[in-house]
């Protein structure tokens, strides 16, 4: 309603004289296209911006890939090493891992090597 009143009011004020109030210099639209086209770069340059998110994504993929490769190559070798150890233990008749940490076994080894307590004390004093 207000819109109609406003339009009516403006028309009345103009007294029926309605024309384009915003003029342009003569020939403006004839030259505008050439002026615009002369400012455009000859060929559009497509620049690819690598976002940080993409960099992190590539880094994560690389790390995961490295982990997978490591596990694929290393785990069978470790397993192979463990199997060889178990085989050696079986052949020698006792647990080598336990032997390293067991005082009783250490005593047996020293006795087997013919080293008595005096020799051990002497060895410790010299060094």
């Amino acid at each position: 309603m207000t819109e109609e009143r406003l339009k009516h009011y403006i028309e009345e004020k103009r007294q029926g004289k309605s024309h384009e109030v915003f003029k342009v210099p003569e020939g403006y639209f004839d030259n505008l296209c050439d002026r615009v086209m002369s400012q455009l770069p000859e060929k559009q340059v497509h620049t690819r911006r690598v976002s940080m998110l993409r960099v992190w994504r590539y880094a994560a993929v690389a790390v995961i890939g490295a982990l997978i490769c490591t596990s694929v190559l290393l785990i069978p070798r470790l397993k192979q090493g463990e199997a060889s150890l178990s085989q050696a233990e079986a052949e020698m008749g006792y647990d080598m891992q336990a032997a390293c940490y067991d005082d009783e076994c250490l005593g047996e080894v020293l006795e087997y090597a013919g080293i008595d307590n005096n020799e051990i004390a002497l060895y410790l004093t010299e060094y």
Partner: protein
Amino acid sequence: MQRDEKQLILLLRDESTRREAFAEVVRTYQEPLYRMVRRIVLIHEDADDVLQNTFIKAWQGLDKFRGDSSLGTWLYRIASHEALDHLERNKRLCASIDDDEHPGHMSLASRLESDPYFDGDEVELQLQEAIASLPHKQRLVFNMKYYDEMKYEEMSQALGTSVGALKASYHLAVQKIAKFFGLNE
């Protein structure tokens, strides 16, 4: 010979014909875009700058035009953003020079009166002052609806604003202008 829009879009997508097709786009849309921009920024030199920037940005963003809307709507969107940016920049510039030593920038009426390309009488000057007193986006909406008689759906596509918000904005703008002319009593 003028091609239809579909043909024109195909030529714009082909790099060998892109430039020639873009010149046709400029020739087709230069006048309606100029009228829209001029009513926002008011002064011819400003409208000329804004319009050239609009076409340069359109050229740079051609790859982003997916054809969801018409070429005209897409260009209207770029031009309206450019015009609003221009107003914002001017506002900041005027605010920065408007101090005690520079007592106020020229009033809009004085600027329009001194513009050789403005051919309006007293009523037009008053109307332009009333429109210029609106917030920038309301000014844009008012001009598109009142002068260009655009449909709300078209405006919605061009400005990326909902139809409801545009209707409310236009209603408020009309109320303010009517008040400016003392029509609200």
